[in-house]
């Protein structure tokens, strides 16, 4: 009797981004609003960051709600039913449950059950991490269609009175469907991490610290309203960054990563139709474009002016706007790069849907 031969999933040669969806929550926060909380001005914020407004979600709109809105549009644009999805990936750092995942609930809401569903924690690089995984899943035969979502409600983890990062941040969600393709549609992913800079961007303290502080502190019931608010603010972890360290890394190290993604894809800067970097700060975007020596013909995504920095959602949101405002870019090549807390980074060249 001959030994049984194991069957492996047939490989798929090419993949592509099939459709992109966006959800932008309806609360608009202007720079004048921000200046109620920090000593600054509209002009200063525009000059330093390029941000004019950011969208934030009201209390009754969750990360999963926003993810659902973006996903429905992405599925429709891709012409795919949720039941055809072979995996659902949500990148987020603001889903307020350590478990269960946002992705499992999202898959159920969309009607994708029993598709495998999981969240990834890669902050502002999360969307590009998701694309790297979706591309690998489809090409390996593990899934035919994969939904990749970046969804963030950063307004839940900011302290409006601090000056390093909170005023940059907005809420929102962007989603794409990845599927098989006749022609190459997603270049090799260049992705990685540098945990030696773990402290450069992150939360003020951990969940265990909250427990300890809550136990050590007086019961908030025994405090006056003002004291209770201060205690609560001190307990709640919020985001901070070392802006200078992050800026240097984001521009000069990430320009190298972006160039590696171009080289890996066999594409020159002048072949690009668009450059879609993580929308962290307009000056990072401008300086990166300069370092990459992008010709004027390359459209640079600048969704940050209106949307602020939305972490994992920023690249798909920026892609969505770019295609809405410049439909002729469809079918062109775009270089996308995400980078953020970890530190982590990911980049690839894609064909725009």
């Amino acid at each position, binding site marked *: 009797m001959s030994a049984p031969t194991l069957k492996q999933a047939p490989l798929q040669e090419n993949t592509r981004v099939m459709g992109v969806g966006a959800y932008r929550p309806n609360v608009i926060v202007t720079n004048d609003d921000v200046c109620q909380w920090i000593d600054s001005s509209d002009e200063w914020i525009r000059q330093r960051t390029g941000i004019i407004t950011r969208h934030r979600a009201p209390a009754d709109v969750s990360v999963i709600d926003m993810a659902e809105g973006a996903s429905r549009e992405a599925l429709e644009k891709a012409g795919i039913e949720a039941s055809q999805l072979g995996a659902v990936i949500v990148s987020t750092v603001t889903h307020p449950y350590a478990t269960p995942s946002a992705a499992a609930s999202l898959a159920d809401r969309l009607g994708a059950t029993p598709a495998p569903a999981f969240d990834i924690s890669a902050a502002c690089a999360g969307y590009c991490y998701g694309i790297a995984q979706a591309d690998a899943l489809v090409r390996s035969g593990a899934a035919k269609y994969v939904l990749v979502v970046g969804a963030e409600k950063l307004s839940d983890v900011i302290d409006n009175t601090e000056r390093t990062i909170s005023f940059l941040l907005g809420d929102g969600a962007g989603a794409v469907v990845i599927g098989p393709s006749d022609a190459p549609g997603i270049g090799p992913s260049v992705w990685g991490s540098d945990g030696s800079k773990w402290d450069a961007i992150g939360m003020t303290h951990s969940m265990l610290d909250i427990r300890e502080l809550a136990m050590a502190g007086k019961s908030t019931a025994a405090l006056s309203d003002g004291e209770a608010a201060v205690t609560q603010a001190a307990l709640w972890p919020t985001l901070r960054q070392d802006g*200078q360290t992050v*800026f*240097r890394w984001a*521009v*000069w190290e990430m320009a190298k990563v972006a160039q590696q993604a171009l080289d890996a894809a066999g594409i020159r800067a002048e072949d690009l139709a668009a450059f879609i970097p993580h929308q962290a*700060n307009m*000056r990072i975007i401008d300086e990166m474009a300069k370092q990459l020596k992008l010709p004027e013909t390359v459209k640079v995504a600048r969704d940050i002016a209106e949307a602020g920095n939305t972490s994992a959602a920023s690249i798909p949101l920026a892609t969505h706007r770019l295609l809405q405002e410049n439909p002729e870019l469809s079918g062109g090549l775009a270089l996308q790069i995400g980078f953020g807390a970890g530190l982590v980074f990911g980049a690839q060249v894609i064909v725009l849907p």
Partner: protein
Amino acid sequence: MASNEEILAGLAEIVNEETGLAPEAVEMDKSFTEDLDIDSISMMTIVVNAEEKFGVRIPDEEVKNLKTVGDAVNFISNAQA
């Protein structure tokens, strides 16, 4: 190896490119933030360009100590030595 005068001139060129400030405004005793109105992001751009121009390494934690143009010139000069 560059003299302090050469480093100052080179630095002034970099500052001019980043901010548009006249090179002659970049003097040894001038504070980057107070006198030249250079913000933290522009400062980082100047630091990286200075590293390239003078072939030195200026670590992130050192940038905070470079208050005046003279601090930067001296740091670069010592780093080159």
